């Protein structure tokens, strides 16, 4: 009996609670509905004067077809310039093509998208699976590299708008000497390494941020960037193409690949007659002079050099990695999350200081502070690993550069250095030998 009443009451109770739940749900949904209406604090009036509400204009983004056209223009320009360099050997043709590229990729497309910056998109896509790189960007990254593998750095000769604008001002190029060239030639490696580190961690695109010529192409830049671009162009009168040789990170990749190029430009069309006319023709110090050992090194010296190199290179590699890993926190402060976490840790000490916009924005977003700290520490960890790798890489590059300076490379002709030659074809005009002039006597 007791059991039954209990059961009945519980059933009753169940019905009641169901109804209450239902009412609550109704109330909840109606509040939701009211809330949706409440967006309009001031509902749209009903006009009596026959006023027609204008449409909100949404101008479309640049048409996709035009982006495909960019890639097509790139392929055409690369093909034309490769033909002009390798087959026609025409300086005038290369010059004309470079002006066309400057006009299209520089002033019409305003320097975006460019192959140099595309390094970062590709890196980000490799390290961050949620970032989809557009096809055109991948094309801009890969295509010049493939052309370089076959024809040398023809991309630099006249497709890259940055190279083209600097080539126009190279009036009085001076020789820098092999040592200075070797030392300054290390800068692009640092730039490339940092760009990849920052792109891989999703911190920043530093190549685009410190792009000197985009401001010129757009007639619009910050004062500092104008000064930077102006300095490069003015110094470019005497030091030909300073950006390409001593800064360009894409140039590093092109340099490596060009060393294995299939049909690289040659100074002479048939046989070098050692006339020395081309010796001073290269504005980029990219002609390797003949080195013929009259008295080759002794065996002992060679062995000692080899031992030294095999000790120095690993030493510099480890030293570089260790050095950069000690400053990884400084490197990481470029990252926005790390910076925010730092300012959130600090404020207790600086009460009188006004809150930064970042902190205000963060507080209004309602995210927990712990999440920011977790994200920042994750980024810091990435930077620690990254700075070790970057440091090792830079140390290795330094060691190899030094080793390269130690060994003597014997060659008997004047040859373009396949790595640093920009295929501008200036030297070609200096060579008195014509196609088919075989069996010429040496002077």
């Amino acid at each position, binding site marked *: 009996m007791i059991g039954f009443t209990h059961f009945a009451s519980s059933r009753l109770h169940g019905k009641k609670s169901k109804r209450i739940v239902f009412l609550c749900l109704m109330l909840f949904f109606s509040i939701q509905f009211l809330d949706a209406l409440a967006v309009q604090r001031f509902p749209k009036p009903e006009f009596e004067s026959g006023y027609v509400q204008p449409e909100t204009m949404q101008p479309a983004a640049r048409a996709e077809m035009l982006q495909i056209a960019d890639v097509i223009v790139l392929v055409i320009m690369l093909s034309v310039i490769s033909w002009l360099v390798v087959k026609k050997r025409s300086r005038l043709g290369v010059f004309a093509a470079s002006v066309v590229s400057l006009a299209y990729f520089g002033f019409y497309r305003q320097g975006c998208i460019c192959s140099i910056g595309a390094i970062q998109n590709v890196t980000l896509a490799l390290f961050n699976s949620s970032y989809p790189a*557009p096809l055109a960007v991948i094309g801009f990254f890969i295509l010049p590299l493939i052309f370089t593998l076959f024809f040398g750095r023809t991309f630099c000769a006249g497709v890259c708008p940055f190279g083209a604008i600097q080539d126009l001002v190279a009036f009085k190029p001076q020789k820098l000497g092999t040592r200075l060239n070797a030392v300054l030639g290390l800068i692009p490696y640092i730039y490339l390494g940092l760009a990849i580190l920052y792109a891989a961690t999703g911190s920043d695109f530093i190549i685009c941020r410190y792009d000197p010529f985009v401001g010129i192409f757009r007639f619009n830049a910050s004062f500092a960037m104008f000064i930077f671009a102006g300095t490069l162009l003015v110094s470019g009168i005497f030091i030909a193409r300073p950006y390409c040789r001593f800064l360009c990170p894409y140039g590093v990749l092109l340099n490596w690949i060009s060393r294995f190029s299939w049909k690289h430009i040659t100074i002479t069309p048939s046989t070098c007659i050692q006339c020395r006319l081309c010796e001073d023709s290269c504005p980029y110090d990219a002609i390797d002079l003949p080195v013929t050992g009259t008295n080759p090194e002794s065996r002992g010296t060679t062995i000692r050099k080899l031992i030294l190199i095999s000790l120095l290179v690993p030493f510099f590699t480890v030293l570089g990695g260790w050095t950069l890993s000690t400053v990884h926190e400084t490197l990481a402060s470029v990252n926005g999350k790390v910076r925010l976490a730092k300012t959130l840790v600090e404020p207790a000490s600086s009460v009188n200081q006004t809150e930064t916009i970042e902190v205000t924005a963060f507080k209004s977003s309602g995210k927990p502070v712990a999440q920011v700290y977790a994200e920042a520490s994750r980024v810091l960890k990435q930077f620690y690993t990254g700075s070790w790798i970057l440091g090792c890489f830079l140390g290795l590059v330094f060691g190899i550069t030094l080793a390269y300076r130690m060994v003597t490379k014997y060659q008997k002709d004047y040859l373009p250095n396949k790595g640093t030659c920009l295929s501008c074809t200036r030297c070609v005009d200096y060579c008195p030998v014509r196609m088919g002039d075989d069996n010429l006597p040496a002077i």
Partner: protein
Amino acid sequence: MKARGAIRTFPAAIAIIRTIANCLKQTSSASAKQVRINPLQKMEEPENNHKINRRKFLGAGVRASVLLGLGGVAALVLKQSVAGNLVWQLDPAKCVQCGRCATSCVLTPSAVKCVHVYAMCGYCDLCGGYFKPETKTLTTAAENQLCPTSALKRKFIEDPFFEYTVDEPLCIGCGKCVKGCGAFGNGSLQLQVRHNRCVNCNQCSIARNCPADAYSRVPASKPYLLRQVGDEKNLTAKTPRR
């Protein structure tokens, strides 16, 4: 023992230093010296031909492997690529109207403009986006206007209602009106990247400076993130929580 070790290592160190110095001297002198020889003399030796063949073979091998490597990188990246372009856009729901859109853009004036979603507008006489908070008379006098460039235009329609339009060439994208409209009105004024002006930098310089992380790459086929009537979630996210 220690002393003997030091004695032994000391000459070795000197030898190493001397070698470095010699090497540097040699390379610089070798590159400076031009010793001319007859190029035709050595070409006839059969041994040289072998060398050239070997070099050619190695070159082809390296070239093939570089091509393979490039293909690998391309394939990895292509796997997650998109056919269309991506453009930058800011999410008005995240925007805090800090004013950096006006100053951080590579263009002057900025490619970010105030956009009026008319469907959300209340056509108020006392418009929080148009008038400064302390305004006494609701006239179009310059001192009453919140907009520093007078880019927001006010037009009478019928008795208590006024239409507000944005004169885009004048607008600098400072977001003052957006803040006013969001605080007192419906939030119909919103900042957006205008794609007829934006040059679509690889890395948007405003995105880097945005304190609210409101910028993202969106598909070019759907390039606007305007809030519409009924997006109540967005408004609650927008109201500052202290």
